[in-house]
């Protein structure tokens, strides 16, 4: 599952609520049919083990005074109850799984590059053998070549371990590459959800459309419609009435957008859009504007 949206739209808060790092006010979080308490303190170690997180900034998420191997080993000891004798062997296996040389176990985070640190963070998350991995912008601070190798690593680990990912990013191409399902978020709410193939072909929500037209595509032959959003995301303290997107929507149809909350519309194939404009109309409007592949 991928989550995309601009900064300040609540992607990270959402992830932190699921991980229990922030307490939700209302609603239900269920993991494998089991209701989760909001606060991390009320979750049992068995539950904690199931949800692991990789953060955006590995400098802040790895203890600078612990060697990489120790950071990876901690969830093994605390959550997996691995005996001391086997610990070294297990850590070594994890390092191998994330394509790091074994002697990196003894290095401090400051002796590793950004991509290597992120690999250590991924190894640590997998150490607990989670069923759900939350990746909060794990690759956005890295170089393109390192990004590609990390994405390949995530795909490989998912295939071998069968873990579910919640992948949060503002990079639509990366989300498209990794996700089976995508949710588009704006101002704390989901506006479009569907399988990755469906979300990125028309009809889409006007916000998705704007996001897609804004991505810079490294191919001079690709023709992109120029849809630009005006202004910035309104503050979450002062949410606009009606459709939350109406203040910036390029396809606003009138007063209905300002007054009524838009309905969920089913496009089929579990692809849903939350907008006042009927699906057929969106389809007709957006046909010309879709991205035409260059190669």
């Amino acid at each position, binding site marked *: 599952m991928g989550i995309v949206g601009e900064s300040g739209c609540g992607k990270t808060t959402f992830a932190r609520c699921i991980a229990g790092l922030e307490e939700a006010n209302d609603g239900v979080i269920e993991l494998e049919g089991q209701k989760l308490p909001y606060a991390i303190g009320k979750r049992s170690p068995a539950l904690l083990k199931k949800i692991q997180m990789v953060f955006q900034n590995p400098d802040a998420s790895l203890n600078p005074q612990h060697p990489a191997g120790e950071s990876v080993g901690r969830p093994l000891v605390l959550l997996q109850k691995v005996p001391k004798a086997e610990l070294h062997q297990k850590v070594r296996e994890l390092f191998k799984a994330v394509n790091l040389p074994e002697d990196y176990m003894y290095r401090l985070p400051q002796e590793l590059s950004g991509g290597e640190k992120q690999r250590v963070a991924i190894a640590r998350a997998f150490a607990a053998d989670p069923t759900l991995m939350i990746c909060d912008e794990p690759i956005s601070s890295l170089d393109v070549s390192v990004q590609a190798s990390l994405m390949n690593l995530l795909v490989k680990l998912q*295939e071998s371990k069968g873990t579910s990912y919640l992948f949060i990013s503002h990079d639509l191409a990366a989300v498209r590459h990794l996700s089976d399902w995508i949710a588009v978020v704006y101002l704390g709410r989901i506006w479009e959800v569907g399988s990755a193939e469906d979300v990125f072909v028309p009809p889409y929500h006007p916000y998705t459309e704007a996001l897609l037209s804004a991505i810079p*595509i490294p191919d001079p*032959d690709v023709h992109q419609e120029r849809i630009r959003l005006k202004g910035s995301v309104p503050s979450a303290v002062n949410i606009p009435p009606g459709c939350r997107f109406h203040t910036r929507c390029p396809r606003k149809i009138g007063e209905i957008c300002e007054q009524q909350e838009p309905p969920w519309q089913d496009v089929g194939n579990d692809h849903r859009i939350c907008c006042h404009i009927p699906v057929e109309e969106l389809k007709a409007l957006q046909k010309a504007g879709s991205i035409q592949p260059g190669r």
Partner: protein
Amino acid sequence: MFNLNGLTKEITAPSSAEFILELQNLSVTYDTEKGPLDTVRNVSMKIAAGEIYGLVGESGSGKTTLARAVVRYLPANGRISGGVVRLCGSDLSKLSPSEMRKIWGARITMVHQDPAAAINPSIPVGEQIAEIARAHLHLSRVKARAKAVEMLAKVRMPDPEAVFKRYAHQLSGGMLQRVLIATALTTNPQLLIMDEPTTALDVTTEAVILDLIRELLNEYNTAILYITHNLGVVARICDRVGVMYSGELMEEGEIKQVFKKRLHPYTRGLLDCVPRINASKKDISLSSIPGYIPRPDQLPQGCIFEPRCIFSAEECRTKRPTLVEAASGHLTACLRWKELDQNRNALTILSARTGKKSISNRAPWCWRQRILRNIFRRHGASPPYGNAAHPKSGL
């Protein structure tokens, strides 16, 4: 609709007199405890008026160092160790610091990556633009203020009079970047250097800023050196591009030439790393460039990209390639560029080292299947296999 492509072509091929910035064999050296470190080596480039030159490469490839050498603003231990920097024909590397001060801000301006760090938080943003106008254009206080408001309006700032009085913390990242662009264009400079100006911004804001830069360029006819690691941004706004690796230029040419022909394996590697919006993990696996960028004091003997190159051959290990002109205006520093040119899709190039076919650009069978299915559909026949596309699913 008039032909935009034809227009840019005319601009990008001017006579030599029109080049605003000319670098000839520029080298930059940092003096460190372990000895001199040649961070930029023998880089030559020319940028014409009204042209955006994109400089791309991984972090640590010397892009920013090059930009700082151009403006002679290197750290204390850095120096230009060879080559010439010419601005409109005059040699900048021979000027004294006081003469450089007349050029900074008036003829060369810069937009940095982090707008919040580049703006003084304790002075209203408009006042900072007015200060530039007073210092370099010698305007009176009243006129400088009017000029600042005019510049804020030029960068499509809503309500420029109000923004004039605001402080940096009262503006969003995108607005701050617009303020910086307004500041940089106040003196109508000949050269504008933009160092990752949109990296810190959201995609939607980035798109707006990129459109703005393009629009302003038509009005100001400035030469722009645009540094970024985002190849998509380069494809969108630049006229020409230089690909830098470990302090040297690997490939240079017009956007279409470089992105289509990709005559250097490093360019191919960078382009193949980027996930595409119309493909997912089921369709392609991303190819990444193995290994790391070498330190300037530990360069390999032959081609500097050889240890990470999937096309490397025996001669690459011993012979250092130089930039050769593959087509008019298209330079590449690869010994095997002719083979790369002939096999544009790289399927048939054998790597001398592994003996395996190159992994770049491979079309996996799911793609082929999809193409086949579409052909069948077009002819009204039912496809020979169903929608279960993925071989790994075992369906």
